[in-house]
């Protein structure tokens, strides 16, 4: 999304809807990338429903992100838990405080900068469901934001809600003047008084108000490149859905989204979850594992060779 800043590369996996397979995908893609030789930390960002450790076959770790949120532990390195993969470590989300699981704004800023400072090539965050500000922040500060959906109306609906939330937040952050930011806040309410329905409507209003901000708005849109991942496809038609959603992102938001890939509906997936082992471990040759490896391969393009650290030039 933005230019690659110094430090570990960050990839966020989100998509709004619970149950579309974000955690399963994060665990398996992380294993694939670690096996390609990169040092990877995978973070369970779901403090209200932690189970990334289960997908990786690890018992609930005693230390987790909850210790950082509760100010019990400042040093993220101490929260790292070893996995079965030599290059892969986990920051779990277990034992969160039920009364206040989500970190506040300043904690989130601190968390993100600490994650980037981890001495690894790549940090992969598995986001929780919904569009909580914490979820959106992780998504927007990441170098790559992956939106996962399955070919079902409920999933599509939540994915677009997620994308709308990400889009307007990102645009608001990119604007310089208070009045334009206020206008974007108004547009985020779908029943706003000005009748702004779409991003194109919003751009027209901004251009009237302040042409300079209009130019900035367009360049901010251009720099935002979410990546689309379709999970649980069963037919060729459902694979094409990724292309269609990409087209709609362009015609509705003006966004140049990338179709990252797809993973098929595979009976092995359920078996691997029940066995609490990554699918790429249990059935490395099944279709879903082949597709997961393709996704991993695409995500590490541009990362530089393993072992020499991340490419910092951006």
């Amino acid at each position, binding site marked *: 999304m933005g230019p690659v800043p110094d430090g570990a590369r960050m990839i966020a996996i989100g998509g709004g809807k619970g149950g579309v397979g974000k955690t399963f995908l994060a665990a398996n893609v992380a294993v694939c990338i670690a096996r390609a030789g990169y040092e990877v930390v995978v973070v369970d960002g779901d403090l209200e429903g932690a189970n990334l450790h289960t997908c990786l076959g690890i018992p609930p770790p005693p230390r987790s992100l909850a210790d950082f949120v509760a100010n019990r532990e400042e040093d993220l390195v101490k929260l790292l838990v070893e996995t079965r993969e030599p290059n892969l470590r986990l920051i779990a989300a277990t034992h969160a405080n039920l009364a206040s699981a989500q970190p506040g704004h300043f904690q989130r800023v601190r968390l993100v900068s600490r994650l980037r400072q981890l001495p690894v090539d790549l940090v992969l965050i598995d986001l929780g469901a919904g569009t909580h500000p914490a979820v959106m922040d992780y998504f927007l500060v990441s170098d790559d934001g992956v939106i996962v959906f399955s*070919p*079902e*109306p409920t999933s*599509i*609906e939540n994915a*677009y*809600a997620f994308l709308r939330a990400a889009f307007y937040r990102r645009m608001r952050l990119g604007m310089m003047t208070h009045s334009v930011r206020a206008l974007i806040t108004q547009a985020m309410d779908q029943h706003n008084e000005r009748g702004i329905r779409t*991003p*194109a409507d919003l*751009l027209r209003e901004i251009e009237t108000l302040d042409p300079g901000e209009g130019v900035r708005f*367009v360049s901010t*849109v251009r720099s935002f490149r979410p990546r689309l991942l379709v999970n649980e*496809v069963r*037919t*060729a*038609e459902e*694979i*094409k*859905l990724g*292309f*269609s*959603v990409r*087209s*709609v992102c*362009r*015609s*509705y*938001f*003006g966004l140049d989204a990338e*179709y990252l*890939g*797809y993973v*098929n509906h595979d009976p092995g997936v359920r078996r691997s979850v029940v066995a609490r082992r990554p699918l790429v471990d249990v059935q490395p*040759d*099944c*279709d879903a594992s*082949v*597709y997961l490896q*393709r996704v991993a391969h695409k995500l590490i393009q541009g990362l530089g060779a393993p072992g020499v650290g991340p490419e910092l030039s951006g």
Partner: protein
Amino acid sequence: MRSLVDETHYEVLELGREASGEEVERAYRMAQSTYAPESLATYSLLGEDDAAVLRERLELAYEVLSDPASRQRYDEVLDGHDDGGAAQERSLQLPSLESEPPAPEPLRLRAPAALPIEGFTDEEEPDAPYDGARLRRARLARGVEVDQIAEITKVNPSYLHFIEEERFDDLPASVYVRGFVTAYARCLGLDAALAASSYLERLRQHRSEAEETRSWGRG
């Protein structure tokens, strides 16, 4: 980010200026399904009215770009006038005023085969042997359903499924399977010789193992 209504016909269909007739056809069919009524891809984001406007816009783009003569006139308009708004305005008109309106080329329902979806094909080792799963992945990457292959090749779709699932015991004699796999591979534009020989090798191995098991049982 202009709205789709203000874009050139090429932009509307997400095509480059050099796109071939076949690419125009494919892009149009893809866009048609994207913005179709009840489409999953627009669900909850675009209202039916919005989608209808976009569909009309697609039809116009396709009408112009699918006919070589009208496309050429349109290209001349795009090239000749770099005066922004005015050219834009004209570009939205069908540039067929000074000549006979071209008869629209009938939409040929060509085999979906050999129309690979960009980006996802050829990601596997080209010389690697084919098994059922690889055949299926190649089919899906090209956006083709089993029934479409069955229609083109006239092979019973059940056999095509058995081939993909490697249900060797349900498949007929290998001479038939060779024909099916060859037809399947050709239909997708795969290396048919390699596909048939490597698949038949798997079939042969399975059948000889099964034979061995049977004779053990007898012994």
